[in-house]
């Protein structure tokens, strides 16, 4: 089965609970067939955004369009959106097949057809043998698959997933991530995926929106957000990062706490905000650079991560790929470090 994903547009959506603002000028275009992720800490409004698209939450103002048509007056059951919930939300009184068949029954599909399509959906999630089981007889991963099969069996053009893997252990989670991605690429439906796990977001998404306190802080491809975070919040949320305060500027660079004058790759040198640099963009140098002392060395298999302290008290983390048999530095070793200048990022806030 192949479906054409639908395009989705959030237009200045706002949602308040009393005085509390759960969603503020939330605008986002999701292209047909795109995999979009909402990433943010708990309470940042991700579920609220999904629920307002699914029809569980009435928005306070703004509009949501599917393929250019407003869904404001379309009841939940007519929106034709597949949804996978974090707690699976399987019907406890129906067996696996009964759960998967539910959306088809509601659409008045014929009995034989229901059975055929439900079994096919179970085949896709590789649960063909468990059709007669009751939900309480399933493991967490199996429940998750049933919930997924139930959400796709009616071939929705939009699939919403609210932290679908949150309750699974790491190994299972990684396996399921791959399967979800594969399925979406085969079928071509539009996916909006919610997670607070940045690794998951980077792996799965075509684009992602980082949310905080009901606002989108930054929206872009995983690479955009990793390489060019626009704020301290995003820089800290995605990947490991060194963030150091800037306390002034000189004509040849910014004055960075504990490091001295650092030259940014930009035309004008910033005088406030933060310097952000990824651990893999800091190198050890035999000559020159900033003198520093190794405080901690963490062996990661393919790399070694060092926490170092510069002479003026800045603490930095750097990652060094391991090549050959060389052993890592011991804590207390004196080294000198330098930055890949064109990877230095200025965060205004």
């Amino acid at each position, binding site marked *: 089965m192949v479906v054409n994903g639908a395009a989705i547009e959030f237009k200045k959506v706002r949602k308040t609970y009393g005085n509390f603002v759960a969603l503020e000028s939330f605008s986002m275009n999701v292209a047909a067939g795109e995999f979009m992720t909402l990433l943010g800490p708990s309470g940042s409004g991700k579920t609220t955004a999904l629920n307002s698209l699914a029809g569980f939450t009435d928005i306070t103002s703004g509009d949501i369009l599917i393929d250019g048509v407003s869904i404001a007056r379309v009841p*939940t059951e007519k*929106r034709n959106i597949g949804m996978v919930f974090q*707690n699976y939300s399987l*019907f406890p*009184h129906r067996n696996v097949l009964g759960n998967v068949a*539910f959306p088809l029954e*509601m659409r008045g599909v014929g009995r034989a057809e229901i059975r055929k399509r439900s079994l096919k959906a179970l085949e896709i999630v590789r649960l063909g043998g468990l059709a007669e089981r009751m939900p309480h007889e399933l493991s967490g991963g199996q429940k998750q698959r049933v919930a997924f099969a139930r959400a796709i069996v009616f071939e929705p053009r939009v699939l919403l997933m609210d932290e679908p893997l949150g309750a699974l252990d790491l190994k299972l989670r990684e396996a399921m991530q791959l399967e979800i991605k594969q399925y979406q690429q085969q079928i071509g439906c539009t996916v909006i995926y919610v997670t607070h796990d940045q690794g998951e977001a980077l792996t799965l998404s075509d684009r992602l929106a980082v949310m905080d306190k009901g606002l989108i802080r930054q929206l872009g491809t995983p690479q955009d957000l990793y390489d060019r975070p626009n704020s301290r919040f995003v820089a800290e949320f995605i990947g490991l990062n060194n963030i150091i305060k800037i306390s002034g500027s000189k004509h040849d660079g910014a004055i960075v706490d504990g490091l001295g004058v650092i030259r940014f790759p930009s035309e004008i040198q910033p005088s406030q905000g933060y310097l952000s640099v990824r651990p893999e963009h800091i190198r050890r140098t035999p000559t020159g650079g900033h003198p520093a002392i190794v405080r901690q060395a963490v062996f990661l298999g393919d790399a070694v991560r060092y926490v170092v302290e510069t002479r003026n008290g800045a603490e930095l983390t750097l990652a060094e790929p391991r090549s050959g048999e060389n052993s890592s530095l011991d804590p207390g070793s004196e080294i000198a470090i330098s930055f890949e200048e064109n990877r230095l990022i200025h965060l205004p806030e």
Partner: protein
Amino acid sequence: MKNRPTTLLLLLPAALLVGLLFVLPILGVLSLSVYGDSGFTLGPIRELVGSRVSLVVLERTFWQALTVSVICVVLGYPAAFFMSGLSTKLRAYLVYLILLPFWISILVRTYTWIIILGREGIINRTLAAFGFSPVQILYTDLAVRIAMVQILLPIVVLTCLASMLDIDKGLVKTARSLGATPTQAFVKVFLPLSLSGAATGGIICFILCLGFYVTPALLGGRRSILISNLIDIQVHQSLNWGFAAALATALLIITLACLALFRLLTRGRTEFSSLGVGR
């Protein structure tokens, strides 16, 4: 569940209490129906089977219990459904209101019905005011039924409500997102999940009905007595303890048979799996 001796010990006080105060007396009463002054006898049982009055009363008791339970569930379920949708605070107030009658003695509540249903009662006076002739409700099965429903309804409402509050509200939302209209979501998800509570309420109601004594005695005529009243007559007026014991035994057997029947009817239905009697 651990079955270690120490945990079993915790069961002991309750088990002793039930054993001494419940099982032993019941066995004693039951044995009265087959043991007379001259040892083992089938006399009382023969008397029971041969007594038209007893059979009629047994049948009436069963009918009253069944109709009252059905009415209670039919009235109580929607009320509980309404309450399950309210805010916690409002619901708490309503529960207080529902429990209010329990503060008043059954006797008083029953006498109140005489004022309402009697020949000169509120209903008949209202009818008369509109020029209708009076109706005989008091001292009929109907009066007994009305009062029993009033007394038992709170129990059914609260049992239904408890099972409804146990239902994950997210499931109804899920059903909607999967294409169910509000009605379909109710019929396909909420109703099956709350059915076990309704059944529990109905069964409790039914069993309580079988033992009603004061209500039929005060509101029923001589033709609406129930089995408890008949047993009372045998004990206090006829002094026929053996026959009374045989009636009690018949009542117990009917109760157990009803439970067994219910169990049979709902066997394998997962809706009832949370209910002890369902599996």
